[in-house]
């Protein structure tokens, strides 16, 4: 998985990591094996939590919107939010809090500005793509945004985008996705810090 490879490169050896929306814990497992991190996952889906425990990943059953302030006294090296930020009720608040409890954050998000999404909307339908695979009535994505929207938010709030990668639908960097990310990137991957 190329996104995992990017995240791996950005994470320092032995880091303390918190993964918001950790799914089955496979990313944390991978980082434990390759970077010897000490990681904790936050997850709300019961089936995923079970898989975390089976995989030996420390997991906390918690809604991110409600629970993120519980960690306000913590100091992690890195907070990760992979493909979860659009599912939050208050993504801007969560991002701000994540940057309070960790030195930096890695955020990945599906780009609603991708040409396939635009085409779908142009044709009068809500997009269903590789990055956004769920129909409008089943999706948990409350706050979809484009790469431009997200980067504007970070700029407004004074968050520094230290590193960024724009990936195409095959989760690879291509000259097109780098040239016009808001149109050709399916995913944005960011390393963010606070000023």
């Amino acid at each position, binding site marked *: 998985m190329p996104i995992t490879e990017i995240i791996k490169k950005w994470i320092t050896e032995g880091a*303390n990591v918190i993964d918001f929306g950790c799914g089955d814990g496979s990313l944390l497992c991978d980082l434990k094996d390759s970077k010897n991190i*000490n990681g*904790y996952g936050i997850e709300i889906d*019961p089936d995923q*939590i*079970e*898989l*975390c*425990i*089976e*995989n*030996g*990943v*420390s*997991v*906390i*059953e*918690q809604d991110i919107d409600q629970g993120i302030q*519980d*960690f306000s*006294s*913590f100091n992690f090296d890195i907070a990760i939010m992979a493909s979860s930020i659009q599912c939050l009720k208050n993504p801007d608040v969560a991002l701000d809090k994540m940057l309070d409890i960790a030195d930096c954050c890695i955020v990945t998000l599906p780009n609603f500005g991708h040409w396939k999404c635009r085409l779908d909307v142009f044709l009068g339908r809500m997009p269903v793509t590789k990055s956004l695979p769920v129909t409008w009535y089943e999706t948990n994505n409350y706050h979809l945004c484009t790469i431009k929207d997200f980067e504007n938010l970070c700029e407004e709030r004074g968050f520094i985008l230290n590193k960024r990668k724009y990936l195409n639908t095959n989760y690879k960097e291509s000259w097109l996705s780098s040239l016009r990310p808001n149109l050709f990137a399916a995913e944005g991957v960011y390393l963010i810090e606070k000023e």
Partner: protein
Amino acid sequence: MKVTSKKIKFENALSLECGSTLPSFELMFETYGELNKQNSNAVLVCHAFSGNHHAAGESNLDSSIGWWDQMIGPNKAIDTNKYFVVCSNNIGGCGGSSGPTTINPTNEEVYGADFPVVSVVDWVNTQKILMDYLGISKWELVLGGSLGGMQALQWAISYPENINKAGIFAAAAQASTQNIAMNEVARESIRKDENFYDGHYLKNNTKPKKGLKTARMLGHITYLSEEHMDLRFGRKFQDNESKITRDVDFEIENYLQYKGEKFSDAFDANTYILMTKAMDNFDPSSNEDGDLKKALTNIKSKLLIIGFKTDWLFPPKKGKEIQLAAMEAGIKSSFVVLDGKHGHDSFLFMSDRYFKIIRSFIES
């Protein structure tokens, strides 16, 4: 399932946390399944405050089913085909181990109120002595609910080298003010029973049954959830034929009367006081100026903390407190909230998710 019941007398003196010493003590315990050749498949189950060593299977004494039979047995969450499970009766209890109803070896009289104050730390220490006796050097898992969960947590703190995993269910690192308040009302009803005789009722050939019954009735309410009581009893009236006393109108009244009566026949009032005191006093952070994180720093085992949504005695937020402190201390720990409709007692009842989580944890 191979079930073994045993009582062992340990002749060495036991120093207790309160400063007193027991010259010797007896432990009653049961085991389920078989210890493997490497002695590496042992699981310790800690009982809650009115529980005892009879956790699973049928007792050879009265053929009653163990209190956690839904959890422990062949192909159950704690699979006795694979694991060797040990459960002992806590000292200070009334299930066969040394306690207020047993004989004080120094004067050959029944202990009664003279049995010293015991603590969660003391119980864990006696369980360690039993562990050594059984030739086990490491528990694969120590688990318990409520006061049993407190023991599992204390195990992880007291003996970090001797435990791989701890399961802490429907428990807290500290009883709440409300918990202590409820327990004090229960203790007061026992103390004010005319047959209490300052705890020396056995010497006077009597028992403070009325007080113990009231205490249990109050306790029982705190173990159930409002929702479950509504569903099970609602405002239904008790039919005349099965009324325990004439004063009873509603089913819930009859139920509490029945439960309280049964309990006060079988349980010991001094034990009730000792156990509730042990629960109230439990506080691993007290040695670290109230800093739970510091108290957990030396833990080497993985923790699984489970809270139950309908539990208002030790609600999920109490479990989360343990989780957050463990996380801050860098301890591997998971926290799960289960639905469980039975209030505090939910930890006793198996559900699909409960089963899967425990299986995943013990096999991880």
